[in-house]
């Protein structure tokens, strides 16, 4: 049976993540309620509007269940808004609630408004070919804890990082044809088993 990976489907581009997972032979499971979390071996928190996603997480009481999932060692990958939702500290919006599962301080909308969105080739540690990274109203990771590994940088800022079973990118690999970062996440899931 194909491995089941949850994609948080409260708001954002969860369909695109599901598509990539399907391409890689996994079975995506859209997560809207806590019951949906039962069978999954990994979870993706997609890009979207972080204020919207955090609110819906709280209203449908998914927060605690995702934290439990993490405690069980199930890998979680957050992209863009997902990175904000996973961060320990949201530097410029300290009151916005987050799951606090990775030791980073992050700035929301740090590049500016929609018009400042851009695409740039970045190099990923251990990869020869550059990765086409799409940044949309992206956050910037300001500070990282000592156990956080930096896997890629853009303009000096970490944009792809990992701490234990949490993977975070401030850009959107699900909007490109390049599946290498999703594959990296699948490797984390295989190791966690």
């Amino acid at each position, binding site marked *: 049976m194909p491995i089941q990976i949850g994609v948080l489907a409260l708001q*954002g581009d*969860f369909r695109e993540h599901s598509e990539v997972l399907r391409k890689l032979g996994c079975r995506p499971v859209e997560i809207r309620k806590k019951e949906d979390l039962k069978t999954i071996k990994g979870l993706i928190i997609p890009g979207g509007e972080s204020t919207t996603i955090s609110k819906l997480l709280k209203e449908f009481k998914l927060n605690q269940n995702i934290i439990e999932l993490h405690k069980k060692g199930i890998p979680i990958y957050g992209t863009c808004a997902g990175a904000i939702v996973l961060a320990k500290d949201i530097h410029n919006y300290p009151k916005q609630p987050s799951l606090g599962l990775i030791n980073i301080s992050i700035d929301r909308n740090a590049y500016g408004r929609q018009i400042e969105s851009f695409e740039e080739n970045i190099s990923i540690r251990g990869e020869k070919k550059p990765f086409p990274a799409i940044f949309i109203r992206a956050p910037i990771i300001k500070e990282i804890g000592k156990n956080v590994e930096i896997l890629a940088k853009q303009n000096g800022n970490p944009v792809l990082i990992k701490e234990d079973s949490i993977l975070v990118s401030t850009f959107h690999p699900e909007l490109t044809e390049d599946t290498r970062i999703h594959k990296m996440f699948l490797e984390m899931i295989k190791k966690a088993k």
Partner: protein
Amino acid sequence: MLKGGVIMDVVTAEQAKIAQKAGACAVMALERVPADIRKQGGVARMSDPKLIKEIMAAVSIPVMAKCRIGHFAEAQILESLGIDYIDESEVLTPADNAFHVDKHQFKVPFVCGATNLGEALRRLHEGAAMIRTKGEAGTGNVIEAVRHMRKMTGDIRALKKMSESQLQSYAKKERVPLSLVKSIKTHQKLPVVNFAAGGIATPADAALMMQLGCDGIFVGSGIFKSSNPAKLAKAIVQATTHYKEPMILADISKGLGQPMKGDEISTLSTKLAERGW
């Protein structure tokens, strides 16, 4: 990233904050909601940049604003304000009877209304980054949005069976490049998101449009013309996520107070959906 979210019309910074608190993924900064534009009549234009700036300063979510159809100078002004999206909207009085804005000249993304596939393709060809149904704005009546969404889906499906020459004549009739038509035929969907707009007034309306295949929801007059905007706004956000779950929808829909009164389409003197070409 607006997908799966709700974009709400607001006329003050205060309303924008309420929308953000309710979980809106963006707000549309306006001077008057469509229901009032309809009632008051006169020429409806771009909003005062001062108001738009105030709304931009009040929230951290993206802010959209409307320009008149074809009014590229209004669009230039809005872009200079740093607005996140421009809605070239039939809700405002059109400024050009032949041309829409050449959206390729702008860096800011545009959203445009469409009642069928041909119209959507013309807008995409002009550079639109997002499509929405026109519906019938300011009525609180969802029937036109449903009609436009069903038409879009039907038109896309109909391409499947068309021969090469039928595709050519369709492209010619709709005044769009054949390559664009062919790519829609292959992918069986628009290359951009298609949101529901024009007449959505309740959580059930939002769920209906999402089940019909929309990627997200615009709510205009519906929220701030209801008796309890904050509660209704939150309910519509939740319904847009849980659109497939009648039990959750029932719970969300409880005790929301009076929705906007709304209009029967046959009683309207002006149909906004007929604006644009």
